[in-house]
């Protein structure tokens, strides 16, 4: 299988008031197409920092990072925007839906930042909502939806451009355990269709639903557990 994410000696160093914080302290690993992987670790270990790098929301201080075969160091801001638009889909802990905007319009949003007709965008957005089981709620505003439903809308938004990778930073952090399970089930289904899924989580039960666990501590990878080894 081809590697969709390749990290080599990745560092992210914040300097605050002369104090150096090494959020990522030399991280190297590969993620292959079709993997379903969770990243675990204590608070402050650098999980979100790593996710933001892979999602092209942030750039490393040093080190090389290739996403879907492209070296992000050589990419222009527009290239990075296009990568965020088409190659990766981000799911946030706090859903980050636009208020006072219908579920359908929220899901449509990424399609508006690429070429294509509005009619086609609508069809694809409805299809994405159908995949998360919310096509009957497409005219609802986020405030009219439960937390789990809002997260599904957010997942539909991440899906709508058929990304290679879905990145979810604590997607179940704000949800109860039953709803969390449903969301993980949804990711699992998407993974069955070939989408690479990376989930950050604090909960072992959530991580157990994935096939590989990457453990971080103080910006280092301290363990990389594969399903066959875990079992």
């Amino acid at each position, binding site marked *: 299988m081809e590697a969709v994410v390749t990290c080599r000696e990745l560092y992210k160093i914040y300097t605050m008031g002369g104090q150096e914080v090494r959020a990522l302290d030399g991280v190297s690993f590969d993620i292959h197409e079709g993997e379903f992987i969770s990243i675990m670790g204590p608070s402050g270990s650098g999980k979100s920092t790593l996710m*933001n790098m892979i*999602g092209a*929301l*942030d750039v490393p201080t040093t080190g090389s990072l290739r996403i879907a075969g492209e070296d992000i160091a050589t990419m222009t*801001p*527009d290239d990075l*925007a*296009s990568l*965020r*638009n*088409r190659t990766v*889909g*981000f799911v*946030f802990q706090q859903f*980050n839906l*636009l208020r*006072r*905007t219908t579920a359908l319009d929220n899901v449509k*949003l*990424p399609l*508006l*930042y*690429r070429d294509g007709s*509005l009619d086609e965008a609508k069809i694809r957005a409805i299809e994405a909502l159908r995949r998360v089981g919310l096509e009957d709620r497409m005219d609802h505003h986020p405030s009219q939806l439960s937390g789990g439903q809002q997260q599904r809308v957010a997942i539909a*938004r991440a899906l709508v*451009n058929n990304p290679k990778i879905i990145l979810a930073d604590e997607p179940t952090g704000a949800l109860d355990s039953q709803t969390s399970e449903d969301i993980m089930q949804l990711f699992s289904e998407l993974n069955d269709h070939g989408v690479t899924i990376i989930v950050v989580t604090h909960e072992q039960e959530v991580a157990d639903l994935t096939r590989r666990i990457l453990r971080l501590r103080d910006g280092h990878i301290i363990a990389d557990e594969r399903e066959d080894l875990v079992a």
Partner: protein
Amino acid sequence: MSFVNSFFTALQALRLNGLRSLLTTLGIIIGIASVIVMVAIGNGARKSVEEQIERLGSSMLTVFPSTRASRGQASGRFMPFSEKTMYALELELPDVLAVTGDISAQVTLVSAETDWATTVRGVNATYPLVRNQLVADGDFFAAEDVTSGRRYAVIGATIQREVFGEISAVGASIRLNNVPFEVIGVLAATGETFRGRDSDDVILAPLKTVRDRLAGNWRPVPDRIDSMYFLFRQGIDIDEAKADLETALRLDRNIEPGQNDNFRVLSFASFVQARNETSKTFSYLLAAAAGISLLVGGIGIMNIMLVSVTERTREIGLRMAIGARRRDIMIQFLIEAVVLCTIGGLIGLALGLGGAYAITSLAEWEILIEPSLVIIAIVTSLAVGIVFGFFPARQAARLSPIDALRYE
């Protein structure tokens, strides 16, 4: 993101902050309204100047005496002209087509019905030609009538209306300060007012008759006239003709080099333009008001857009996270500022048109409402939107996605 989508996104964002958005545009509304009133008045003034010059002729010069102010001292007395001088100048200057003198007196008109206080002006038979004045009814008097001092009167449109009403005054006998006159014609209305006086409230009569019977003789200059009008051939350089006329008059009136003139020569163009100075001054004031309002309004827009960018930092972060490029964000906020300004501009346009109409009915300035006013309003508000929206939009576009997303 396509332009249409950006436009709807902007409209939606503005709708969410309806009242705040509207208040923000107040400066723009006032600014654009001032611009519209200013342009309407400016156009109106220009049009009326053009019309008057067209009607009165651009090749006519008016000459009237002024007090001689020499070394700061006014001699205090007007030196009138004489008919002799006028005819001499007519012969001397090559391009003169016709001349007329003018001597006026305040009179009371007594007719069968009413008494009417008005001005009688003694002029030559050439007056209609020189002043481009039409006779609506009856005739103007002829040159012999002037020489022989006939008591003929040609009355202005206002007198026809106010004294004689519907019935034509031609043929009527009237008395002007007890001197009997016969009305032989009615002038076409000019519709003008000059220094608050109705130009149609006038009686024209032969020059000699008015001087001898009404204005009173003045011994030092028995053939005196108060002012003279010179009509030149079309197409000559009127400023050159004016200079020649001045030189000839200085000679005639024995004015030494270095001494000030005791007369003034005005071309009608300058005459008419001077009359429009008030509306011009008003236009400048409005221009200043418009400029300040647009500046203040623009800063208001900039301020509200900066607030909006700050409030919506997370939204910007999210949009970037799902693929918005910097220019998409930039355009989104620019359009928002421009739409805001344009809404203000359209309200200002409506207000300005209302204001312009109000002003024409209050002051007697002509306004000219042209379709171009709409374009001016829209272009101005677009420009204000772009200029003052640029900085906030750039601030938004320059945010880093991760910092924007994390913004509390």
